[in-house]
């Protein structure tokens, strides 16, 4: 019936009415072949050919394999109107959302003979709904993310995700008030058109849900991409208000540049870095202060940025800024807690050291006196002429054992003795050379191969050379003792992060984790004649020099002690 109407004179009138609704229209026969369609439908479905004669399945690309749920079949068999929505993925991952109404057409007898299908492009509305729900989800995700790098990456992923705000590329700049600059922190997005296509195809095919996409984006995030690296090179003084990102920080307003290549007010260098003619910079404002700027563009899709996108972006940016602020506060808190922990540990350690020190002094003094008497008389016995062999041997044993005890006491007394370092400008390499030559005979007797790698460009630093030498002696002695069957001792110096680093590495027995945890505890020892003060003293000396010691050890492979002294 309808097809006959469409063929008569009123065709044009009806067609105009339909066109006015911006609706795609088609008529299908009972075999689901299209017998008529209007032009708008071709536009909506992004098909450039004549649809007449094609099958429904071919044209609408809906889930027609699933015959149970096919709305067209339902309308034909049930005689009732059916409403469906489909999603169309067109070139470059762009999505289109289409609403279809399938209505049966009856003849004069009331038999269903044809089917009318009306299609409306609802992409705009649908995207808005999706974006709103997405922003809600994002806000939740962001508020729950306290690791700052993790959060920043999450934000950029949301800005670039096809299901999110859908920009091609996003760069994040952070404000550093102390240094009075704004600098490029990270960037997300492809570096070339090919890569962009590949990524979008992957995203569209693989990830339906935003959560999955974010996880995948995080797992795949690489810091060696050209985009990220270029962004890391960008930094501007906050005084330089002509710079785009700086003015965005200062004015707290979105900058939407549509024709950057021909805008004489934008710094050429900035355009070179960004490389896009149209871009948006949006300030991240928390507590009335700009903490950063996100800069986005559609370099590859060349899709113009719309007013709506900017609106969504504004909502998103305010939430992102809050989340960054939270994470930054959390990070500060974490740092403070860590500092407190370290201070507390140091206090406990120094308290323990001082208690042990006092006790050691007392005990050592009390023992030293009777020990000196015992040993002294034993020596006296040895001087008596003509004593029998047995008595001599016994007295010798007493003398020997007393001497051993006295050596242990001397060590303990050294430890408890409060000594202020006498600091002067010293060359660490010299101290090490000195220590090595002192120990040369010892190395030879223990079959130790010495491997020295001293960085000759080391500057002089202010230390107590005697104390540092004591530390090196201690560590070298330990290293040699851990190689009873010989081995290689490597002594190395270098500069690292504002410190001079001294490595003392052996190829000895190595230590278990349990031993490693205790090596700096006073009186902890694994040696038969050890007093357990050598490493504790070394540790204390290095700490008195505002330095620190690190240990790495593998069983049967060896141990490396690294001393760090500030320059």
């Amino acid at each position, binding site marked *: 019936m309808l097809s006959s109407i469409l063929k008569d004179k009123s065709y044009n009138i009806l067609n105009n009415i339909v066109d006015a609704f911006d609706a795609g229209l088609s008529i299908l026969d009972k075999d689901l072949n299209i017998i008529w369609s209007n032009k708008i439908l071709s536009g909506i479905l992004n098909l450039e050919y004549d649809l007449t004669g094609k099958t429904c399945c071919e044209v609408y690309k809906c889930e027609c394999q699933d015959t149970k749920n096919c709305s067209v079949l339902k309308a034909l068999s049930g005689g009732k109107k059916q409403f469906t929505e489909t999603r169309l993925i067109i070139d470059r991952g762009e999505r289109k959302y289409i609403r279809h109404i399938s209505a049966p057409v009856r003849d004069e007898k009331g038999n269903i003979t044809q089917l009318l299908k009306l299609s409306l492009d609802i992409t705009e509305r649908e995207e808005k709904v999706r974006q709103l729900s997405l922003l809600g989800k994002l806000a939740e995700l962001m508020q729950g993310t306290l690791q700052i790098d993790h959060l920043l990456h999450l934000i950029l992923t949301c800005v670039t995700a096809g299901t999110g705000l859908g920009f091609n590329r996003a760069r994040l700049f952070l404000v550093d008030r102390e240094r009075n600059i704004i600098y490029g922190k990270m960037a997300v997005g492809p570096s070339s058109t090919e890569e962009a296509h590949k990524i979008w195809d992957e995203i569209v095919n693989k990830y339906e849900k935003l959560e999955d996409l974010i996880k995948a984006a995080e797992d795949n995030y690489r810091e060696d991409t050209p985009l990220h690296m270029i962004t890391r090179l960008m930094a501007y003084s906050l005084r330089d208000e002509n710079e785009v990102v700086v003015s965005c920080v200062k004015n707290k307003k979105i900058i939407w540049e549509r024709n950057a290549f021909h805008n004489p007010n934008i710094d050429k260098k900035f355009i070179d870095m960004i490389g896009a003619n149209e871009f948006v910079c949006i300030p991240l404002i928390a507590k009335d202060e700009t903490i950063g700027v996100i800069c986005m563009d559609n370099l590859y899709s060349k899709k113009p940025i719309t007013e709506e996108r900017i609106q969504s972006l504004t909502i998103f940016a305010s939430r992102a800024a809050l989340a960054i602020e939270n994470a930054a506060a959390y990070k500060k808190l974490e740092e403070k807690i860590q500092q407190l922990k370290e201070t507390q540990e140091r206090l406990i350690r120094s308290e323990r050291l001082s208690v042990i020190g006092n006790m050691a002094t007392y005990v050592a*003094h009390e023992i030293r006196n009777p020990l000196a008497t015992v040993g002294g008389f034993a020596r006296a016995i040895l001087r008596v002429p003509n004593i029998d062999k047995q008595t001599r041997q016994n007295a010798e044993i007493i003398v020997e054992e007393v001497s051993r005890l006295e050596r242990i006491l001397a060590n303990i007394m050294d430890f408890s003795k409060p000594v202020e370092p006498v600091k002067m400008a010293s060359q660490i390499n010299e101290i090490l050379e000195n220590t090595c030559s002192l120990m040369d005979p010892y190395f030879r007797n223990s079959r130790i191969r010495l491997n020295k790698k001293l960085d000759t460009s080391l500057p002089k630093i202010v230390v107590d050379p005697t104390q540092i030498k004591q530390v090196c002696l201690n560590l070298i002695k330990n290293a040699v003792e851990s190689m009873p069957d010989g081995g290689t001792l490597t002594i190395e110096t270098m500069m690292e992060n504002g410190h001079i680093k001294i490595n003392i590495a052996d190829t000895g027995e190595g230590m278990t984790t349990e031993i490693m945890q205790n090596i700096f505890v006073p009186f902890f020892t694994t040696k038969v004649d050890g007093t357990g003060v050598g490493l504790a003293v070394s540790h204390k000396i290095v700490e008195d020099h505002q330095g620190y010691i690190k240990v790495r050890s593998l069983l049967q492979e060896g141990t490396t002690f690294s001393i760090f002294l500030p320059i």
Partner: protein
Amino acid sequence: MKTILVVEDDKNQLLLYEQELSIEGYNVIMAKDGQEAVRKVKEQMPDLIVMDINMPKMNGIESINSILSDHRKIPIIINTAYSSYKDNFMSWSANAYIIKSSDLRELKSKIKELIG
């Protein structure tokens, strides 16, 4: 014969020093605390004093001060179990500082160095 005053509160140690220093040919007199030491110095004018620090009644430092105020020239060797005062002994006007040991060679050579 040179006379040495050994000031020491440990009676066994005192015995050891008496025995060992006598063998070296010195006349050894003894005091068990600082007060006795001050008195003995006045009575017997020793050529050298070997002094412990940590003692009852009057400790080594107090006795040194007291003795030196009257007898400026008597050399004094501090002989103690404490190693921690070593850096200060010069300010106490003592001539030497020896950490007690069963091996008396260091003490003996110091005495020889000071009074022969």
